[in-house]
């Protein structure tokens, strides 16, 4: 089930929340667990078994780690960790990368291997990282093992962040699993956040996505300006889509009494790629830093080793985003930029005026999204060539696209930086009456919610025309 669907908005969310608020506190976790399983099973009636397996498996691993500690067999603990990591990553790799490996081997050897066409279980990349963070933290003795399987299951399967993150680390919500404060103020703030995310997704991301889809379908035959419009549209789409989803997850989390960490912090304002990755998909960056980069030695073992570590982290970050060579190249592209910045570029960038360093960052990120969004490396190369002017700088089609999309690009650009938020906040702060301030915000949210709902419904308007009668 996705958040921006009629079933979720009209049925699932209001029913689950109503039940959740009405039942006594001790029943809330089971309610949340059951509704999360329903949420997942709605779209993946079969693959839910894999998620349940992961959950039970790592619940067991946590207990085992704890028992080995109390039994004084601490030296055996690492085998449990290795088992957990192997099984979890094994499942992830099997479902996510088998066809990719077969396809690559086949194209290299021309052996005529056929793909298995394995469907990817929804959210597996996210919940695998969540369960791993739990086992690793228990291993490191940073958290205690969870004894209540319902609470643990709820942590893994919790529907707000199940499908598209943020990746919630166990230790960040450990306390809230047992007790959460829920009051009208927090619920309202959650609703506002949810509506903000929903409108980002429905009103901005979807329209911007259509722009990219159309221009990408020209397959590099377009003029540079057209390519730029397409790439800029994608750049904004992925931001509003992803950060919108995170907003919705954080918002629902807050309605349920959870505090999830922020996942995006206006990344397009960054003055370096290093900074960009501190502000984009923060929960993933932190995960890789804490569970891979630092254990590998981080920057503590000299520059050559640091570069190797960076390389590993970014090759895997690329692969995490998708099973395709363009994702690997995309990850390594960032490795190169980050390595350069670590070596000398960062100090140079700091000397530049902010518009120049921001321009550099935006350009670097824009190019990366072209690689990311393309179907394959060939498509990406053709698109980049057109972006560089291989088919001329602009033509009538470019101007048509510009006229057609300038408004949404301008609005998107404005809303993707913090200026808009600051302006609104400044205005709101001038209103001293808190009740009036809230009423005003709530009214705007109500309008945005209604318009978003209407757009979700309208997207089902689908004139069925026998093509060419």
């Amino acid at each position, binding site marked *: *089930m996705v958040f921006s*669907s*009629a*079933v979720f*908005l*009209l*049925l699932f*969310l*209001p*029913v689950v*929340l*109503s039940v959740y608020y009405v039942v006594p506190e001790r029943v809330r976790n089971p309610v949340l667990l059951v509704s999360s399983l329903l949420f997942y099973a*709605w*779209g993946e*009636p*079969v693959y839910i078994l894999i998620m349940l397996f992961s959950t039970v498996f790592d619940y067991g691993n946590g207990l085992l780690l704890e028992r080995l500690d109390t039994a004084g067999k601490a030296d055996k603990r690492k085998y449990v960790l290795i088992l957990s990591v192997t099984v979890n990553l094994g499942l992830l790799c099997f479902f996510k990368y088998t066809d990719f490996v077969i396809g690559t081997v086949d194209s290299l050897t021309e052996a005529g291997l056929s793909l298995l066409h394995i469907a990817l279980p929804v959210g597996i990349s996210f919940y695998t990282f969540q369960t791993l963070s739990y086992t690793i933290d228990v291993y490191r003795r940073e958290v205690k093992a969870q004894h209540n399987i319902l609470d643990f299951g709820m942590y893994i399967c919790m529907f707000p962040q199940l499908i598209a993150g943020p990746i919630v680390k166990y230790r960040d919500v450990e306390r809230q699993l047992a007790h959460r404060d829920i009051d*009208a*103020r927090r*619920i*309202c703030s959650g*609703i506002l956040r949810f509506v903000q995310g929903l409108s980002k997704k429905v009103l901005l991301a979807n329209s911007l996505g259509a722009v990219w889809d159309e221009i990408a*379908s*020209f397959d590099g035959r377009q003029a540079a300006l057209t390519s730029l419009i397409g790439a800029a549209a994608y750049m904004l789409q992925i931001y509003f889509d992803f950060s919108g989803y995170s907003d919705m997850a954080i918002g629902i989390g807050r309605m349920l009494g959870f505090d999830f960490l922020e996942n995006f912090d206006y990344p397009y304002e960054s003055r370096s790629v290093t900074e960009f990755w501190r502000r984009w998909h923060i929960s993933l960056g932190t995960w890789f830093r804490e569970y891979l980069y630092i254990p590998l030695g981080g920057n503590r073992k000299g520059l050559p080793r640091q570069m190797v570590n960076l390389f590993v982290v970014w090759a895997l970050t690329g692969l995490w985003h998708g099973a395709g060579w363009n994702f690997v190249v995309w990850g390594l592209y960032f490795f190169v930029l980050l390595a350069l910045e670590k070596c000398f570029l960062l100090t140079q960038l700091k000397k530049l005026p902010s518009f120049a360093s921001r321009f550099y960052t935006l350009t670097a990120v824009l190019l990366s999204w072209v690689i990311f969004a393309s179907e394959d490396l060939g498509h990406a190369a053709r698109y980049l060539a057109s972006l560089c002017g291989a088919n001329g700088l602009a*033509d*009538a*089609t*470019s*101007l*048509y*696209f510009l*006229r*057609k999309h300038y*408004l949404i690009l301008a609005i998107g650009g404005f809303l993707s930086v913090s200026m808009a938020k600051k302006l609104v906040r400044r205005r709101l702060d001038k209103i001293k009456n*808190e*009740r009036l301030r*809230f*009423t005003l915000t*709530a009214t705007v949210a*109500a309008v945005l*919610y209604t318009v978003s*709902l*209407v*757009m*979700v*419904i*309208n*997207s*089902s*308007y*689908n*004139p*069925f*025309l026998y093509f*060419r*009668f």
Partner: protein
Amino acid sequence: MDKLTRVRKISVTVFLIFPLLLLTVILCSPDRSISANENRTLKTKADVKWSVTNNAFQNWLEDYLSDQFPLRDSLKQAEIECRLSFGAQELGGAYVGEGGRLFQKITQSDVNEAACLRYARRVNRLATETELPTYVMYVPSAGVALRKQLPEGASMYDGDALFAKLIKELPDTQVIDLRRRMASDTGNYYATDHHWTAQGAQSAYQAWCQVHEIAPREAELVSVSDTFQGTLYSKVPSHRVPMDTICTVRLDPLPELLADGQEIPFYDVAALATKDQYNFFQGGNHGIAVVTNSVIDEGEGKTLLLLKDSFANSLVPFLIGHYRQIIMIDERYAFVDAEQLAQEYGADEIAVVREIISTP
């Protein structure tokens, strides 16, 4: 409880109750089963499917809630109006041209050129194998013919390049080139539909006569409907889009029409009361439709085997005066061997009339 907390609690309640209220309205009000605008059936309670292993129920519920949402059509119209007032020139795959005239957006990648060429080769083969005079009339798409009416810079496929490639494949036929005629007047196409108007069809008829070296018959055009909102209107349902008038030739007596073995009216007046009024012409498309002109006695006059798409439906009223019989074959609805049919019906001529990009 202070006032602010009360306002907050009310807000939370509204956030929970409002969607549930909508849901209740959807579930309790009677279902609409058809959306005329979209030309499709809507999901109703009767369509519900149950399954544990696949997503049949889930998909049904999602579709059902969207399809039966209160004021669904009006909400879509409101969105369209909103977009148009922000200057939208393209909506749902249709270009909005001068004065609200709509054009189907067909880009180069929408055209299956290989299939078009394959079909042209087949027609040429048919001409050589039957040794019958064969005429090919490619109808330009409205957006190509009336290019100047499109929003500036709007992309359409290259009609001239395609035409040039196709005629190379048709050396043994006579190609009737309509490009200049169709481009000469906006009135040749409907504003809300991708088809040509009676005026457009009449102009094509004149070109037909020219190639056949015969004089066009007098044709009196009569209006049969002035409330036509065609397939493109469905994509852009807005009051800014003008309604079309359907005209046709007055024929007396009307030709007889045997469509897939059933006798039906040549002009289907009942279709004018439905959404798709273009079905007025022969009640729409049929696999094999035999049109007989009773004015010409049996055994006299010529028989035409017409391989066609829906454009031909409004051209046949002009052509029928010159033939005893026209055998209309729509190869999308009937898998037939055209050569065998030509023999069976004793065809004297073969013609292809279809939009240039359409293939069976």
